[in-house]
């Protein structure tokens, strides 16, 4: 019997769903063991009946063993869909950093909604000024962006922006085999092969306006640690996993750019801002050299960590 799977996306971008598709032939191999009953990106199952005439007070998601949810919760529709998924699914997986920690869209938690609306509908150079869209058909915004576990119970967290396909595969296969998945628990730094010489040489971090120093064509393992090159790198305070099972190095390091923390904190309830400032201080780096410290929470602003001034 194939395992029934339901999938939903909330305050998200679809990158997590593309990461699922990037499983490629691995996905084709496990497909016979899965039965998708609801997945809006690929399949036409509707909330209110296939003829659109169902009860609009009853959002229908078929029962499934596994529920994959990407995206955080920002409006009333997200909340209703999340609650319906929880009701229909035995195991709920928070897929991606928006679902686990709010992700990039939780940066809006640093602003007031009225300022957002003012800018969007009355303050842009191209927009003909208009009152805020307020038709009853539109889901009202909630007061902030939430991670999934602030509103519903989550059984498994798969952070990443997006998660690596290897971890998605591991989660699916583990569930099929009835065991706990084996997921990364260390920091990006712990899995980074760059050369580190020790603390204390760098006193300030600089903005990333000139490229890192490295020999073109040589492996990442021959490049010096970017933090030790004076670039702000979030590797020390970010959950590992972006390199997948067989990657040579964290993915941003392959691009020769510093980590910005897209897998969220190392510990689920960590605080990337405080952890990073601590990491800098313990390396003798002046914290005031960080431009826009609020950005250190750019991937994990839910759980009330980023707040409007």
């Amino acid at each position, binding site marked *: 019997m194939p395992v029934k799977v339901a999938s939903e996306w909330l305050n998200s971008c679809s990158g997590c769903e593309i990461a699922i598709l990037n499983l490629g032939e691995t996905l084709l191999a496990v497909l016979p063991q899965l039965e998708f009953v609801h997945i*809006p990106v690929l399949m036409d199952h509707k909330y209110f009946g296939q003829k659109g005439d169902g009860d*609009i007070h009853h959002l229908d998601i078929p029962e499934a063993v596994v529920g994959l949810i990407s995206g955080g919760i920002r409006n009333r529709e997200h*909340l209703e869909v999340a609650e319906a998924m929880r009701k229909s699914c035995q195991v709920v997986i928070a897929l991606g950093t928006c679902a686990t920690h709010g992700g990039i869209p939780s940066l809006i938690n640093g*602003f007031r909604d009225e300022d957002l609306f003012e800018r*969007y509908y009355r303050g842009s150079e191209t927009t*003909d000024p208009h009152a805020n869209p307020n038709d009853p058909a539109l889901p009202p915004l909630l007061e902030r962006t939430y991670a999934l576990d602030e509103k519903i119970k989550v059984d498994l967290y798969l952070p990443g922006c997006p998660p690596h396909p290897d971890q998605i595969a591991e989660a699916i296969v583990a569930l099929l085999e009835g065991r706990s998945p084996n997921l990364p628990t260390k920091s990006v730094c712990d899995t980074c092969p760059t050369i580190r010489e020790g603390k204390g040489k760098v006193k300030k971090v600089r903005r990333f*306006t000139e*490229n890192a120093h490295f020999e073109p*064509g040589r492996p990442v393992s021959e490049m010096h640690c970017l933090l030790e090159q004076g670039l702000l790198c979030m590797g020390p305070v970010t959950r590992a996993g972006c390199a997948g099972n067989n990657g040579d190095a964290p993915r941003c390091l392959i691009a020769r750019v510093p980590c910005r923390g897209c897998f969220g904190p190392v510990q689920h309830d960590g605080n990337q801002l405080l952890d990073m400032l601590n990491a800098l201080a313990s390396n003798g780096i002046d914290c005031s050299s960080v431009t826009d410290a609020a950005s250190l929470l750019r991937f994990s602003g839910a759980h009330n960590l980023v707040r409007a001034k």
Partner: protein
Amino acid sequence: MEQKIVETAADQAFAHGACSKKKVINIQPITRIEGHARIAIQLDDEGNVADTRLNVMALRGFEKFIEGRPAEEVPRIVNRICGICPWMHHTASNKAVDGCFQAEVPPAGTKLRELMQVMAQINDKILHFFFLAAPDFVLGAGADYAVRNVLGIVQAAPELAAQVVKMRQAGQMMIEKFAGKVIHPVVVVPGGFAKSMTEDERRELLEKSKEQLEFARFCIDFAKKNIFYKLDPDTVGLGQITSGFLGTVKADDGSLSLFDGVLRLMKADGSYQDFTYQQYADFLGEHVEDWSYSKMPYARAWDEGFSMDLKEPKGIYRVNTLARLNVCDKINTPLAQAELEEFRKLFGRPAQSTMLYHWARLIELVYACERVLELLEDPEITDTNVRGKVTPGAGRGVGCVEAPRGTLIHDYSTDDNGLIFRANIIVGTTHNVAPMNMSIRAVADSVIQQGQVSEEALNKVEMAVRAYDP
């Protein structure tokens, strides 16, 4: 408190509809698209279509929350606007920051940017055609919803499906191996690119890109033979409206460009004006309706206002594949040019049929593969000077690229410290919101009469939306 905000998110499709007890059909969510939207079709007492609406449900606020961020960080933030086309936001944003900081990009930096952006287009077009759109044509608009999807195609044509999955996967991995991240990229930076390309990397990509071009040729031949040549007039006319078009062309010869050039705004009669990125706000405006969080861009330069009336539309233009093929004078790669000539001979210029977006998409797939080969055969692409000098400071920059879904505009202003203090972004799909509303109305009128509503009819309404690949 939250419970009282509103009774339910799906509360009465049209408030006024609920009051008059008229029947409303909810197509929710719209599926096999990227994004959150629903269609509401209101019927009159005779069961004919009284009105239709496309409600865009999401508002995340990128333009607001990048305020205060160091501009050089923003290309790594705004790529999260879209997980299908993050390369488009990433490159357009970098161009805008270049403008703010008056950074000069070395030739190899520009070429690497274009290479990545066009390679990403290849994967996107394969994804849209086979995974999202094809089920309606291969399995039929009226097939059971449980099989009318890519999984159904895997069942019905396992060899084709395996080939598609393999080629798309290979395309994604080609980018990832060189650029680190393929979803939510980081390798493009203000002033250029974060790393240079080695000769070995160039050769490996070149070999694989030749396979991609062969596959693209197979795709368009397959689609023409099995789908496009067989389309009946009703399907070709599905969701057809009359509109103008917007896209990017090369300034010197009016040829198709996905990466750089001038913007061309064409009226339905084929006349057009070209303008630079910096002039966009003189030519384009955005209209707001109460029932959609998404705005509706229109052609401000035509000075006729905004109306989605099917018979007398005002200010309405479209973007995305069909628009780009309509506005360009030619395509500078031979195979795609031959396809364009056949297309124009059959449908004229500008072509208006909404379903032709699919055909145009595969012509662009051929172009993208040919363009990637051109770039990889350019010896300058391995030059190690890939990033120019970047000095944070006050300025304004407008960066554009053609995203798969249409012309993408990022407009930023920075303060003395190089922090963003104002941003205006017009995303590809947004330009098509008003046209999609019109296409929905056109299909609904043709497939729903006297209260007869079938699943197939409603799927045809969605097919009109899917053609725009929102």
